[in-house]
């Protein structure tokens, strides 16, 4: 275009060549130069089909990596160039690609963000995907192909999808190389899973629906390392939260026993409001409400704080019951020795209290540990969250079962410790009789009656139904006043 225009101009100018020889030379030079430019420098030719992206769906839960040899879903997108048409696309998979069960293509054609109905026929094999459009796809449209259940090669590497397309004129054109997909080879976990896949006993095990859904061997193998990360995070939540709750709880328990009615009143409100509302609700209020007040905290830190606040109210009541269970005579004796109330509390009463509250406080620790799972609902990455996303991506319940085992890993030994401590406590306090009568019940209901024993030891609150054995169960959170009733000291003398 430009060249012909220039030639025309030159021809016309020839008439005036005598007048303007200098201009003529100049124009001739321009013409030559433009010729050179046209042939030497490659023009950005209108691309028939531009590959926009090639991605693959991470195929291991809890990670963003794509593992070779395991089915994934490849998404390929390309735009049709201006004044171009595309009749047929062939995408070639890297060598070593395999197809999983149910492999299929899903072809979407979009104009801007509007989906168009574009009839086409497509096939997928382990070598390539072929899409033939009934009518050529016009310029500017986005073609999106999702290839599901395609397993990329097993070796670690960067893989590209190559291919060809046929344009409106029927010419076969090679596609630009697509962005590479990073694939890693089997990790140890996958190697074990792969080995399990081939075992006949695994196959017959998984043929039972219950075992497949709840105790899938392959998923147990992948859950254990993934959930371990979550287990550490959950444990962290409670290991920070609980020590924080102890001083707050102790302070509140003192306020609950203060001389001034007003102080007692406010402390009672704190304890009763927190114990009278579900922790779940408190978490929601803290996570969705506080930010509106301008309080912006890391969600993990906020999680620790909410757990500490919640637990402090329960601990306050445990401590109060413990302190009040110490016989009045102890206070009187200390006073007669000339101790002031502060000295009495810290050197006489509290040391005795600590021993008595340890089993109940440990139960509270167990409860709090299990309650960390509630934080999953607000997006704190902890064990339940890891398990949930594994279940969501696999549609199998096994990660929940593995998760349960991780919780038990902490709660069972602690329960045992409580039981041992109670025995010692009972021996020290010298009322073995109570224990023997308890023992019978234990044989029937298991070995978890920490709170019961303390109740019996420090006074009968009457709130525990015999048989509500498991303090390691969140239902033991019970009514707001379960330990609040006054101790009667009757077993302690």
């Amino acid at each position: 275009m430009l060249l012909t225009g220039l030639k025309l101009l030159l021809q016309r100018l020839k008439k005036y060549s005598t007048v303007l020889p200098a201009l003529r030379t100049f124009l001739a030079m321009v013409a030559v130069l433009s010729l050179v430019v046209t042939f030497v420098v490659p023009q950005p030719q209108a691309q028939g089909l531009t590959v926009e992206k090639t991605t693959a769906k991470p195929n291991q839960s809890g990670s963003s990596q794509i593992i070779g040899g395991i089915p994934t879903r490849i998404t390929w997108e390309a735009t049709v160039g201006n004044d171009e048409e595309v009749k047929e696309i062939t995408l070639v998979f890297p060598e070593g690609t395999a197809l999983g069960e149910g492999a299929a293509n899903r072809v979407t054609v979009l104009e801007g963000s509007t989906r168009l109905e574009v009839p086409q026929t497509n096939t997928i094999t382990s070598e390539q995907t072929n899409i033939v459009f009934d009518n050529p796809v016009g310029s500017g449209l986005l073609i999106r192909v999702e290839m599901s259940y395609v397993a990329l090669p097993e070796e670690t590497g960067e893989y590209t999808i190559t291919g060809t397309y046929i344009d409106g004129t029927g010419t076969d054109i090679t596609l630009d190389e697509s962005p590479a997909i990073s694939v890693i080879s089997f990790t140890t976990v996958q190697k074990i899973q792969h080995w399990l896949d081939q075992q006949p006993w695994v196959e017959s095990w998984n043929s039972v629906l219950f075992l497949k859904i709840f105790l899938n061997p392959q998923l147990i193998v992948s859950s254990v390392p993934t959930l371990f990360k979550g287990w550490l995070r959950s444990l962290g939540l409670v290991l920070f939260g609980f020590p924080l709750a102890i001083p707050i709880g102790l302070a509140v328990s003192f306020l609950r026993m203060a001389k001034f009615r007003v102080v007692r009143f406010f402390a009672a409100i704190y304890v009763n409001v927190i114990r009278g509302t579900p922790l779940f609700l408190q978490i929601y209020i803290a996570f969705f409400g506080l930010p509106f007040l301008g309080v912006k905290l890391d969600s993990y830190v906020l999680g620790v704080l909410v757990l500490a606040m919640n637990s402090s109210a329960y601990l306050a009541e445990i401590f109060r019951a413990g302190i009040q269970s110490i016989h009045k005579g102890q206070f009187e004796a200390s006073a007669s020795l000339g101790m002031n109330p502060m000295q009495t509390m810290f050197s006489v009463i509290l040391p005795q209290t600590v021993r008595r509250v340890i089993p109940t406080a440990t139960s509270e620790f167990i409860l709090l540990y299990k309650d960390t799972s509630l934080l999953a609902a607000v997006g704190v990455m902890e064990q339940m969250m890891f398990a949930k996303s594994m279940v969501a991506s696999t549609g199998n319940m096994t990660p929940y079962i593995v998760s349960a085992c991780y919780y038990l890993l902490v709660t069972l030994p602690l329960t045992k410790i409580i039981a041992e401590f109670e025995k010692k406590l009972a021996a020290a306090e010298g009322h073995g009789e109570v224990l023997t009568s308890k023992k019978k019940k234990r044989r029937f209901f298991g070995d978890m009656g920490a709170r019961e024993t303390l109740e019996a030891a420090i006074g009968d609150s009457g709130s525990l139904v015999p048989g509500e054995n498991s303090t390691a169960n969140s239902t033991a959170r019970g009514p707001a006043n379960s330990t609040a009733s006054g101790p009667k000291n009757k077993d302690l003398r």
Partner: protein
Amino acid sequence: MSQRSKVLSLITALILAMSLVLVGCNGNNGGNGNNSDNGDAPVKTITAGVLTVGSDCDYPPFIELDGDQPAGYEFELLNAIGDEIGLTVEYLAPQNFDTILASVASGTKMDVGVSSFTINDERKQLVNFTTPYFDSNQAVVAMKTAPYTKAMDFNGLTVGAQSGTTGADWVRENLTNAGTVLKEYNQASELMAALNAGDIQGAFFDEPVAAEYVAKLYTDSQIVESIPTGEQYGISVSKDNPELLDAINKAMVTIKKNGTFDKIFLKYFPELTPPSLGA
């Protein structure tokens, strides 16, 4: 009576009571089966004559709770389909999105799952989908004060999506920088609340829902970019109940032909073209 025998008799009584309840349930089921045989309903559903629906009821304008009753495009569409088949549409209490498909697949709790489910090949292995009734895309929402201009700007940031959604999948597949943290929420409303609380920098979910939220409820936020995916919503039906799938697809053709569908569609999306529903 000694303490132990008291406990024992209590347990025995409990077991007896439970077995009675179980027998009772079986009896009821038998009755229902007979009813449907009598021709009260042309297709078999969990409760005869009733189409039991599982939904998260938190995805405006598709389905949301208006007071304690669901409302929205999908709600009206299902009512029209129910009328056509001759089933009363009843909703279970709002379900978590990521559990609905598994419940539908088990075929014991709900007949259909309706929560703007994008049809894809992975989900098709679990359940059947009806003819698509809506074309959708993904979108990323951020606060208006945030500097982001496109979806890939969020690569390496903390972002949120609803658990089990195609939005969550998109983030995992495309935002591959090591720094990216994906927080998953049960409900779309929690996702938006978390964005406004500053817990996440961007929220990834379906574009029509994002548009609804930023226009009405969270006006401090905006859609940063629409991500064209051209995904389509279908009603999920258990693979064990192909008759119900057929009945719903046929009903969709009928309401498309008699204009009911277009009326419902245009009420909610006046600027869009109603899909063909295979009619």
